């Protein structure tokens, strides 16, 4: 193997998270930043997200996915950030030695002073759903169909049923319709949609595509090619209700049934993974339990909005540089834990060392159900310090709370911050 090269910051993944982390790391005072990307281009999944709606927070204008990516790629180029494409990271070893390979250099190792995990996420597949029936051609994840249509110029089929109402499924319902396919129905197992409300309006309602909540696919028909599916209503436990079955003729079934952070490398490195998010457990600096290993974007927890990915990734980039420059050496301060309760499924971060936090810290979280006319509340130990009224919160839409360092410092004995949903 070739000689080990050293970098201050090595970022794994050149999608929106990796690009934003890299630019911010460079701006925070180091020239030694490297992005490792397994695809032949930067930008990640944004390159196939040709729809608009990106960048309202970051650029104050509405961009498509490729345009949003192009701005960050141009930024990385202007900043002269080093980048290896077509490069697969095989392992993150102890002491942050990264083993990677590509066609030009073969297998090689890199010594990083800090690593930023920015590998993104993957779609949940049919195998994870236990749908009975044959395994014919014509069943795709929504993201695969998106790639085929938008990048390869291929239409996966003409008559489509979509299972799952995640955002990619909703976006593909519209996209396939525009390309001349007939999207017959979107079936969602849960009693609420997993996608953003705006996508139900502009991708389904605009085109008269029905959304059937509390429904799932109970049968797949066709031996060589899919020729139909059966959809049934489910009860409150998600079990199909006999007698509610409906047959649909279709040659294509798209699955939009959830995204899973891609943490094989993180696990290999000994990073502790949250069973709720499937992403690393991190502190206020977005640092994992392995010192000097940071995480951001969809590998940390699945986001709805790329703008928030960019924001989070900037924080990871900034914090990683502070760590490398010795400005974030672990002081022996008491750690505050953030505890999700009553309807709140998780928070990112999950611990805070207040001496290490920036003046303002964004805590992001998701709720486990749809709640109407509720309050998002925050407790500092027993004392309620925030009680914010919300007309509606839903699992498909990420929430956030801003914490101020000054306020935390005024509670010197604080041990637990609880975030919960309250009725009143």
């Amino acid at each position, binding site marked *: 193997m070739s000689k080990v090269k050293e970098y201050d910051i090595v970022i794994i993944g050149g999608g929106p998270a990796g690009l934003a982390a890299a630019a911010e790391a460079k701006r925070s005072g180091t020239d030694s930043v490297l992005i490792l990307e397994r695809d032949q281009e930067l930008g990640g999944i944004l*390159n196939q997200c*040709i*729809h*608009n*709606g990106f960048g*309202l*927070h970051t650029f104050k204008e*509405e*961009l*498509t*996915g*490729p*345009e949003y990516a*192009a701005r960050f790629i141009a930024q990385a180029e202007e900043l002269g950030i080093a980048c290896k494409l077509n490069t697969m990271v095989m392992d993150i070893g102890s002491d942050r030695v990264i083993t990677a390979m590509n066609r030009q250099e073969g297998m090689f190792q890199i010594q990083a002073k800090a690593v930023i995990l920015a590998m993104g996420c993957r779609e949940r597949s049919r195998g994870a759903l236990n749908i009975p029936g044959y395994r014919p051609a014509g069943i795709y994840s929504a993201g695969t169909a998106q790639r085929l*249509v*938008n*990048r*390869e*110029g291929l239409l996966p089929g003409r008559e489509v049923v979509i299972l799952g109402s995640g955002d990619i499924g909703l976006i593909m319902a519209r996209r396939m319709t*525009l*390309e001349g396919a007939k999207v017959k129905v979107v079936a969602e197992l849960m009693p609420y949609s997993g996608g*953003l*409300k*705006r996508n*139900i*309006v*502009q991708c389904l309602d*605009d085109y008269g595509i029905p959304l059937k909540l509390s429904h799932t696919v109970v049968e797949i028909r066709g031996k060589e090619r899919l020729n139909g599916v059966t959809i049934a209503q489910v009860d409150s436990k998600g079990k199909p209700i006999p007698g509610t079955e409906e047959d649909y003729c279709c040659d294509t079934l798209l699955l939009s049934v959830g995204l899973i952070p891609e943490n094989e490398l993180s696990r290999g490195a000994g990073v502790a993974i949250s069973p709720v998010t499937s992403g690393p457990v991190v502190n206020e600096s977005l640092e994992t339990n392995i010192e000097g290993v940071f995480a951001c974007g969809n590998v940390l927890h699945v986001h*709805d*909005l790329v703008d928030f990915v960019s924001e989070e990734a900037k924080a990871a980039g900034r914090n990683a540089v502070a760590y490398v420059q010795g400005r974030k050496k672990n002081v022996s301060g008491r750690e505050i834990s953030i505890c999700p309760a009553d309807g709140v499924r998780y928070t990112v971060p999950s611990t805070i060392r207040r001496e290490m936090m920036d003046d303002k810290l964004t805590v992001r979280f998701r709720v486990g159900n749809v709640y109407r006319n509720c309050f998002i509340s925050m407790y500092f130990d027993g004392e309620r310090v925030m009680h914010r009224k919300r*007309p*509606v919160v839903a699992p498909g*839409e990420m929430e956030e709370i801003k914490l101020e360092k000054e306020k935390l410092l005024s509670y010197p004995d604080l041990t637990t911050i609880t975030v919960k949903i309250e009725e009143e």
Partner: protein
Amino acid sequence: MEKRELICIGCPLGCPVTVSMEGGSILGVEGNTCKRGDDYARKEVTNPTRIVTSTVMVEGGTDAMVSVKTETDVPKEKIFDCIRALKGIVVKAPVHIGDVIVANAAETGVAIIATSDVK
């Protein structure tokens, strides 16, 4: 008085917006959290518009397709006409973000432009 309940599509927040109307004129907009929401609601009940995004084929480039969009929003009923205006179009590489693909899509007066670079 008539009330129309909408979900703003101006950004991914998706604010629930209520428009009060009387005989075709708008009396008020409630529930929006920004100016964009007010604009969206007024347009949606009078002349709903959308940005249309799609792809066209590229010849001699590193990619088979280039992504495109209408430069501004177009009337909702023109969506399929805009898509039809792209049918059969093949552009030659290189293509740059902002390049005009169709000057006046479906008589809307709006151009369709490239949203990605293809070398």
